């Protein structure tokens, strides 16, 4: 694998994570538990779609051959997506979304802190921007974590269930393969093993403060770095890509 190929895959991964998380969060539009949360979810969705656009645009430029960010979002098939499995999981109930957002935003804050010092200037710029946005996402998820965890018996039960259910998807966030290793040596990407210990230090006190039992799981799900996904991604793409598949190159 050349450095350029590694960079392309890495940018797809950053872009796909944001694209899938944003797409899922947008499902809350008009369905939030109340108006302010509806706006919060869709605002966070918008930030994610925006950074997906930025990363995929850069990926398209690295790939060359005249592709655009829209080609990458709308014309790749399931096996060509590299998003973490957790991002494509259904939004579930509100507690499930908060649990997803807490896990993802803790990870994002740490990763974008590192990447804002990337030797790749474009990645550093997008990461510096994304970091500021992710900090707001993190605070939002953290504060809801406290409220759900220490709220009613029902909110606690639902939130505990969500954390339990999602925990086996946290392992692959920190996987490092050929792509990450090549770019780490170049000073472009970061060390995900270091992120892992920082992530644990960040999320554990929040879960404890939320009276949530830390799950123990024997098996961690994996596959997305090879383009192997849950059954959810195909369903998402069939909806997300419908227009460009049915009417190729249609313009808004």
């Amino acid at each position, binding site marked *: 694998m050349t450095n350029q190929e590694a960079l392309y895959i890495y940018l797809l991964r950053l872009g796909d994570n944001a694209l899938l998380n*944003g797409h899922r969060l947008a499902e809350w539009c008009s369905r939030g538990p109340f108006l*302010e*949360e509806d*706006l*919060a979810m869709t*605002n*966070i969705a*918008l*930030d*994610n*779609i*925006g*950074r997906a*656009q*930025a990363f995929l645009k850069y990926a398209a430029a690295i790939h060359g051959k005249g592709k655009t960010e829209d080609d990458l979002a709308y014309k790749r098939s399931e096996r060509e997506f590299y998003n973490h499995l957790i991002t494509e999981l259904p939004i579930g109930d509100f507690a499930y979304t908060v649990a997803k957002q807490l896990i993802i935003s803790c990870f994002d804050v740490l990763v974008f802190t590192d990447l*804002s010092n990337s030797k790749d*200037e*474009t990645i*550093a*710029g*997008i990461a*510096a*921007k*994304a970091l*500021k*946005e992710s*900090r*707001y996402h993190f*605070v*939002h998820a953290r504060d809801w974590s406290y409220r759900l965890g220490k709220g009613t018996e029902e909110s606690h039960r639902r939130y505990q269930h969500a954390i339990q259910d999602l925990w086996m998807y946290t392992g692959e966030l920190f996987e490092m393969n050929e792509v990450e290793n090549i770019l780490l040596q170049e000073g472009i990407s970061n060390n995900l093993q270091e992120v892992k210990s920082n992530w644990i230090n960040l999320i554990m006190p929040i879960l404890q403060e939320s009276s949530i039992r830390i799950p123990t799981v024997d098996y961690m799900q994996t596959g997305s770095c090879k383009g192997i996904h849950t059954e959810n991604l195909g369903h998402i793409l069939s909806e997300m890509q419908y227009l460009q598949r049915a009417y190729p190159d249609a313009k808004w």
Partner: protein
Amino acid sequence: MVTTTAHTKERIFDLLSTIVDPEIPVVTIAEMGMLRDVIVSYHACEVILTPTYTGCPAMGIIEDDILSVLKTNGIENPSVKLVYSPAWTTDWMTDTTKEKLRKFGIAAPTHSSCSNWLKPTDVSVNCPRCNSNHTHIISQFGSTACKALYSCDDCKEPFDYFKCH
């Protein structure tokens, strides 16, 4: 005939300085700090723009407005390039810009670049209408990506707060 060479960088900056933010029409893109640079060559003109938020839907409109102003003024081959580095920050807003926001009904960012990001609500935000500091946050996420929703406890009016970023 108007040619590109007749337009200096300063002249183009002046032209672009009339373009307002479509979501906050009292401030221009220059005052917001989004207009970073203009690169003029013999047959082309490239405008360097830094987005406020990655997903800001106003960016597309602003790009169209820039191209339209440049074409109307006879500038050949205008283009817009989005540059993310250095990342845009509310620190780039001048006091004059903040005062314009306040008159428009939007409380301006209170401190520099989210130094206290773990507790973003620990700031004293003054009501843009009655200037009272008895205000409280309703939602960290408001009508646009850049704003939070607050309410004044004295004049009882809700208002937007431009978040530190």
